[in-house]
């Protein structure tokens, strides 16, 4: 059931994309959209991934919307917090290591990219479950404290995905 819902989500997203590209919702477009979606999912699973989307990139669309709003809020928060540094001209960039509990590749990639997307922090490297993060103004170099300050609630939300 979960699997069917997941593929239904994928087909729905691809269908909307197809309709938007055509810029009209005639019967022809509405009929070809799901067919092309299913065809492209099958082809990419068979030749590119050599595995199923369900096993590799599982997500829930409601979770995705929730996560995007949360990420947007984080981006604006850290975007505002970086303004004093620009005005005063002080910066003390340093590399700190943080530890994460997440283990699947998708979750790690999402976490690393979310950290890079928020201004003031850039992920440099991942080794296992340790992330090297370049930080604008490190308040602490302690591995757990830095983890709490950088990851915030992102990690908690990412744990919900699976």
């Amino acid at each position, binding site marked *: 059931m979960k699997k069917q819902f997941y593929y239904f989500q994928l087909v729905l997203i691809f269908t909307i994309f197809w309709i938007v590209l055509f810029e009209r919702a005639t019967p022809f477009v509405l009929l070809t959209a799901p067919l092309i979606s299913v065809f492209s999912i099958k082809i990419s699973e068979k030749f590119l991934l050599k595995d199923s989307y369900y096993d590799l990139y599982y997500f829930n669309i409601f979770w995705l919307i929730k996560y995007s709003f949360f990420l947007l809020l984080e981006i604006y928060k850290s975007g505002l917090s970086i303004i004093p540094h620009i005005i005063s001209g002080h910066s003390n960039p340093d590399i700190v290591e943080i530890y994460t509990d997440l283990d699947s590749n998708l979750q790690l990639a999402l976490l690393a990219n979310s950290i*890079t997307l928020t201004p003031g922090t850039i992920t440099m490297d991942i080794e296992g479950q340790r992330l090297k993060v370049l930080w604008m103004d490190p308040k602490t170099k302690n591995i757990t404290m830095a983890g709490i300050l950088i990851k915030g609630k992102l990690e908690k939300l990412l744990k919900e995905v699976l």
Partner: protein
Amino acid sequence: MRELISNIIIFIGISFIALGIIGIYRFTNFYSRALVASKVDTVGYITIVIGVMIRHGFSYFTMKVFFILLITLIINPLITHSIVRSAFISGYKLRKE
């Protein structure tokens, strides 16, 4: 009314970008510049695109702009990461300012 709101949002976006550019010229160290530059292409960019979407109302154009926004949000951190990582590997020094 909608035009006024969208103009204000676009103005906020442009001021974010202006701040980012001031930051790029203010700092001299590579890493500080890279960190400040991400302000231009995330906060400023997202704000401007949201302003454009509100200004145009709900249409196919808005949806296309939204898809462009999504694609950029996926690709943007990859580029930042690869630039900074390659700089670190080639031996750029971290410096306090």
